[in-house]
């Protein structure tokens, strides 16, 4: 702080004393004197102060839970048989598989990820409509790791005042020692974070033993290094700048909240006019805000919540904790700053009973959409087949005239066997009387074909189907239906069908 605040006074909030949003403010005089504004602005160092309270506790709980899940999840084992990965959560790029406990997805089924992303987006919309940017304040990785890094910083360098002093102090042995220790610990956390991220994509124990034995591949090393560097830079240095400048969410959130959304709010009518603490404890003729500035110094993004709802606010509620602590001390009711909605505040001002509407068109629509998407995904997942067929009809040539006058079409027939067993099938064709099928390389045509597929793989067959020209009746294109029926001794036999067309010459 300490900057001359030349903000034109408005709405009686110029004496906030908080950090201005921009380091270099200009006055009308500067412009009139034709001094151009600075093209670049130096980063304003911001050291949030420690705070105790409900929301701080909640943030710690969420942080421990999320980091715990993140670091432990790749180590959970899941037995899938001898020749399959035994990691519970694994995205295997080389094999094109995503494993999630009992579920196993092929790359062809990536649409499930789309479903999860849609659910996540709707969940974010719903949370924002109800509670503003709680995702940003509590669960976003940027917030979680920044919190973690600041905790380390405070442990080594001390709280806000000590850190500001250390920043300003000349370089000394103790300053160098503190800074070195801090960066080493940050880098270690970042390294473990980057390594843990890679462990979701390769076998975690193998990764660790490879790193320990210096046999890790350059590719893996690059990604571990990349995520180490980004964690270190984003959580150690960029911090709230990511939220303010890089993330699109603050710009979008304005359209996601409404008059009933619970946002971190300073209750202006109760707080203003603010003044220093009353000596006699009488707050009847003044605002309850004692201008202690605690809400500002604890803010992780360095804003003054008393300026109103603003895009830098991540809705973490730490200013609420700070203010509640002060209100307790001076004997005023809590909640000068609270999760509050515009409608509730207006109601209180008009001495009506404040109502909180959870069920509003937008929340209901988000919730209904979420339930619908989840239901569709659940249905698709529960009826997911372990047998799939893809057929590509040859387009060059579209068809071939054979010497006996019949017409032949070529198809690439792919069988996706998602089980870990060898399977046998019989392939039949409907829709084309007198048609014969053969596999490329065979001489004789038959009505049905016996096909097989290996465990956990795609088997591709080149098929030829031929039919007498008379059957086509002059039609250029005839619908045909391939039916693949499982035979053999396996349990839970499946059937797959695929519709395609059989093409003949244009009638002349």
């Amino acid at each position, binding site marked *: 702080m300490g900057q001359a605040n030349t903000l034109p006074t408005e709405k009686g909030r110029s004496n906030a004393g908080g950090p201005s949003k921009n380091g270099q403010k*200009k006055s009308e005089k500067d412009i009139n004197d034709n001094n151009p504004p600075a*093209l670049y*602005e130096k980063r304003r160092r911001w050291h949030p102060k420690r705070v105790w309270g409900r929301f701080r506790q909640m943030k710690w709980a969420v942080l421990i839970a999320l980091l715990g899940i993140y670091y432990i999840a790749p180590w959970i084992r899941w037995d899938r048989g001898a020749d399959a990965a035994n990691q519970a959560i694994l995205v295997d790029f080389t094999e094109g598989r995503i494993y999630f406990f009992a579920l196993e997805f092929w790359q062809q089924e990536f649409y499930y990820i789309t479903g999860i992303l849609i659910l996540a987006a709707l969940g974010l919309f719903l949370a924002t409509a109800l509670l503003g940017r709680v995702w940003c304040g509590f669960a976003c990785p940027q917030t979680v790791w920044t919190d973690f890094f600041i905790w380390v910083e405070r442990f080594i360098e001390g709280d806000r005042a000590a850190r500001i002093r250390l920043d300003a102090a000349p370089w000394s042995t103790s300053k160098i020692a503190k800074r070195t220790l801090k960066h080493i610990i940050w880098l270690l956390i970042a390294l473990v974070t980057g390594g843990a991220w890679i462990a979701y994509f390769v076998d975690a124990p193998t990764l660790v033993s490879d790193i320990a034995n210096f046999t890790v591949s350059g590719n893996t090393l690059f990604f571990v290094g990349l995520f180490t560097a980004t964690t270190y830079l984003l959580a150690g240095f960029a911090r709230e700048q990511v939220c303010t400048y890089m993330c699109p969410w603050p710009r979008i959130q304005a359209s996601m909240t409404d008059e009933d959304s619970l946002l971190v709010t300073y209750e202006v009518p109760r707080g203003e006019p603010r003044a220093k603490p009353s000596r006699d404890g009488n707050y009847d003729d003044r605002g309850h805000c004692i201008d202690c500035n605690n809400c500002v110094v604890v803010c992780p993004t360095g804003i003054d919540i008393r300026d109103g709802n603003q895009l830098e606010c991540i809705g973490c509620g730490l200013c609420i904790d700070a203010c509640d602590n002060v209100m307790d001390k001076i004997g005023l009711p809590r909640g000068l700053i609270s999760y509050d909605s515009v409608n509730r505040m207006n109601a209180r001002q008009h001495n009506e009973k404040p109502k909180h509407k959870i069920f509003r068109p937008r929340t209901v629509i988000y919730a209904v959409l979420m339930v619908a998407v989840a239901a569709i995904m659940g249905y698709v997942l529960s009826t997911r087949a372990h047998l799939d067929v893809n057929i590509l009809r040859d387009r060059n040539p579209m068809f071939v005239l054979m010497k006996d006058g019949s017409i032949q079409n070529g198809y690439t027939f792919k069988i996706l066997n998602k089980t870990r067993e060898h399977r046998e099938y019989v392939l039949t064709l409907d829709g084309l009387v007198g048609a014969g099928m053969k596999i490329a390389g065979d001489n004789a045509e038959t009505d049905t074909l016996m096909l097989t597929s290996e465990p956990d793989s795609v088997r591709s067959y*080149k098929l030829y189907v031929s039919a007498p020209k008379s059957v086509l009746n002059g039609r250029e294109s005839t619908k045909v239906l391939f039916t693949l029926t499982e035979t053999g001794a396996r349990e839970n036999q499946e059937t797959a069908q695929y519709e395609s067309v059989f093409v003949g010459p244009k009638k002349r």
Partner: protein
Amino acid sequence: MAEDKKIDPIAGVETTGHSWDGIQELDNPMPRWWLWVFYATIAFSVVYMVMYPSVPLGKTYFKGTENYEQRVDVANDIAAAKAANSEILGKIAAADLETILADKDLRDFSRAGGKAVFLDNCAGCHGSGATGGPGYPNLADDDWIWGGDLAAINETINHGIRWDLDDDTRLSEMPNFGADEILESSDINNVSEYVLSLSGQEHDATAATNGAVVFEEQCVACHGEGGVGDQGVGAPALADAIWLHGDGSKEFLTKQLTNARHGQMPAWDDRLDETTIKMLTIYVHTLGGGQ
């Protein structure tokens, strides 16, 4: 527009003076770190120019301290691909054609490799879908002039057809019955009608009966009894639905009888290695008409 600039009362920041429907643009300064990133990219480009090929110098160029060449990369990639394929190519080289066709892995590899070679070398005449065109046989059907089993296809690719540079090339010639005055024009007319009758097309029955006699004398030796063709001498079947040089009409038949046309195909054994020709054979055989 400088006179329009003013301090925005809420943000306390100077505006650019631009206004759209009353919405004004703030002129916030860029963050300093952004400038550093910009300087870093400039530094990177200088380092890059020193290390990698960068500056043109007349007909040559500055090669950089790393001596990097993309051609070397390509050569390495090709060598790596060859090394990766060497095992299965060795198997294909060692196996006979029937074995390759029966083995799923060898057949799939041969079809893929054969297709690439086909598109590079054969598609010019036979077409990218191997369906040929007038004068160029369709390889996807089951009408084979010189034989459609593995051995015959392999032989044709190796030695070509009517290819003078190869001693083992496939040779045969249809006489110019008209141009060399071997047959009267009336006989040519009658034979044409007879051939039309062989493939079940509309024809003049009387002329066809007369033509049958001439066919018996002049054509049977190569095209066989009833025009079934003879793959040993490359005589096409005349009794089926497929025609090489035309559409099987009377006009076409008369033309061919008067001035015979013959196709020609190069021998490939001096251009492609044996393994490649084996893969090509498997590809052609599995196009839909192999026998």
